[in-house]
């Protein structure tokens, strides 16, 4: 195989295959909608995909459906419909787009979304519970809330082996057993622990490859853009978790990134600034938002979003297949807790990234829709500034609502940020 063929075959493969898989996933959802089969509405932070896949229950990710309306530039129609119905402009844009989707009988730009027959959620986001209650009222479906104990004290986190961790793990395991009972009742199928082992095995392969892919972005130039490419990977990570397609996808993605890293093929041809993104992307102008940075040869090498929106899969927790339920409860506790921590204690996460990714700046992006991820960003920025001399930018827009996205204002701030970075670099080179 010539190098040219290898480049053609490998570079960009993750994005193409990711889009194909995502399309296939939606096709499956359309079939479920047509046949009226079971569908579980789940969330990215603690989807419990391992259990639901064991019972072959198709999963719907309302957060992903909602952000897809923004990327496809129709979110405003959905938001308006929900607001016409009576929802306040201040309510989470994801929730409102989903409400409008339900009012539209599941008609989504990507296809027909099936109705829920069950909702499975964690306490990772405080809106999840209220959101699920909407479906409960609309469809009279069971809502299963998995209560995952969070970090009680940031200075002394519990770890596997600690008595307090074991208590928390048992608490999660007991709830997982309740979820299994619920799935048995819904599907009429007996729980098959060997099938769970198989699912966990696929999740292990995916997690391992995903962590390696993130680590490979330490390479200079970076091999993928954490904001744009990363969002595609997150889509597959969530919707194909525990499946053979998902694990194969991430192993092939790792192969691509290993190749790009070894050949020093960057996401930009002239990478000048390596940035970290903190918060949720600006989906209403997704491409343009990224261009504001790439026009200055800046790229995002990592983000807290890759952590919390993958439900903590980045931790690469490896399930012990000899004790599947105990291990699943441990992995769920660790990954969901980590997802919550990367939102609430993102200063620690950002400092960790800064240590190893050779970054030039941090972009904090609070959004109007989500106070959960946005409230702590100012504190996170202060903590970063006091710990390290890293330039940071604080810009506000939204993940869904284009009414509160001002391109001109964003661009002016971003341009000024880069002028500062360039000036700083000149001063540093003059000193050295």
């Amino acid at each position, binding site marked *: 195989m010539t190098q040219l063929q290898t480049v053609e075959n490998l570079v960009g493969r993750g994005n193409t295959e990711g889009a194909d898989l995502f399309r296939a996933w939606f096709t499956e959802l359309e079939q479920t909608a047509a046949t009226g089969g079971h569908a579980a509405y789940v969330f990215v932070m603690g989807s419990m995909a391992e259990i639901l896949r064991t019972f072959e229950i198709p999963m719907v990710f309302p957060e992903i459906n909602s952000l897809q309306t923004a990327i496809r530039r129709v979110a405003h129609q959905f938001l308006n419909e929900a607001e016409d119905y009576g929802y306040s402009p201040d309510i989470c844009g994801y929730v409102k787009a989903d409400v409008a989707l339900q009012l539209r009988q599941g008609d989504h730009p990507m296809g027909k979304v099936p109705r829920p027959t069950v909702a499975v959620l964690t306490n990772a986001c405080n809106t999840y519970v209220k959101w699920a209650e909407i479906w409960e009222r609309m469809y009279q479906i069971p809502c299963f809330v998995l209560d995952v104990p969070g970090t009680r004290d940031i200075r002394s986190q519990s770890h596997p082996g600690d008595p307090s961790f074991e208590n928390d793990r048992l608490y999660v395991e007991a709830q997982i057993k309740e979820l299994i009972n619920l799935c048995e009742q819904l599907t009429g199928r007996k729980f098959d622990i060997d099938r769970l082992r198989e699912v966990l095995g696929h999740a292990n392969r995916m997690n391992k490859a995903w962590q390696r892919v993130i680590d490979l972005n330490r390479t200079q130039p970076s091999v993928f853009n954490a904001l744009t490419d990363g969002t595609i990977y997150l889509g597959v990570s969530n919707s194909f978790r525990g499946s053979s397609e998902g694990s194969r996808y991430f192993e092939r993605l790792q192969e691509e990134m290993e190749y790009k890293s070894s050949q020093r093929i960057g996401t930009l041809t002239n990478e000048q600034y390596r940035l970290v993104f903190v918060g949720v992307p600006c989906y209403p102008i997704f491409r343009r938002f990224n261009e504001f940075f790439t026009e200055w040869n800046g790229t995002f090498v990592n983000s807290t979003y890759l952590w919390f929106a993958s439900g903590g899969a980045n931790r690469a927790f490896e399930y012990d297949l000899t004790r599947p339920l105990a291990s699943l409860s441990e992995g769920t506790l660790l990954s969901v807790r980590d997802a919550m921590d990367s939102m609430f204690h993102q200063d620690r996460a950002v400092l960790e990234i800064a240590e190893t990714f050779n970054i030039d700046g941090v972009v904090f992006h609070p959004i109007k829709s989500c106070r959960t991820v946005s409230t702590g960003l100012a504190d996170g920025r202060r903590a970063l500034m006091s710990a390290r001399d890293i330039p940071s930018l604080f810009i*506000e827009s939204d993940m869904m609502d284009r009414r509160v996205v001002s391109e*001109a*204002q964003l661009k002016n701030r971003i*341009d*000024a940020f880069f*002028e500062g970075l360039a000036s700083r670099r000149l001063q540093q080179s003059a000193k050295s």
Partner: protein
Amino acid sequence: MTFTSGIDIGSTYSKAVIMDEHFQMAGKALVRTGFRLAEAALQAQTAALVDAGLDGKQIEYTIATGFGRHQIQFADITATDITASARGCAFLFPETRTVLDVGGQTMKASLLDEVQHVKSFRLNDKCAAGTGAFLEKTARYMGFDTNEIGPLAATSKEPVPISGVCAVFAESEVINHLSQGHAPSDIMHGAILSLVDRSIQLMKRVRMEAEYTLIGGILRYETMGRVLREQMSSPVNIPDPDVVQFVSALGAALLAQQRLSKLRAGEIREHAHEQ
């Protein structure tokens, strides 16, 4: 003689400054921006050339700044108004550490480092609250022209507290105060006080340090500068009224001179943005 120009396309006014190689301002002009940004830039540049007694061919380098900077085809490069205003303020007042720029639709505070580069900056929110537009609307609702804002506020005896700074809701607040018998001059003074509070708040967010330099069209009004000085209980620099609106354009023209020298010396290569 080498001449450069700085064009600042602001939301309300477009300003042009011509600078010579000895860093002297050779000419300047101001026009309303309107809707045709490129046209406004050309008009401002042409008028500044007339003021300087030059023709366009004598301008060897142009830097565009302000919100409309990307529309200026004849500019060599662009720089944000954050950078341009910092350079302009440091040129006029070399010990400047904090810059407050209150324009028609924006309010910007910047903190400069010891070599007068921008260390941090904050801008107003995504609305015209706390900007010149608020004062303009307040004046207009009471039947006064923008040019009358300064003299009107100067005759105030007791300012009326204005709770908000929303340029849209200003009307209802103004009507309410007028119906209660307050004098337009007191309302205008109250509006300026409200704007001053917001300005100080923004400067605090960049961890303001002396010396302070205040620029922008709103600083044309003597009351604004006076109240800011009183509230900050600290000396502040305010350029002369005929320059205060031109500081970003001046900074851009200065950057253009500096950049041209470096280009000629081969120290830098041409680039799409200022560094």
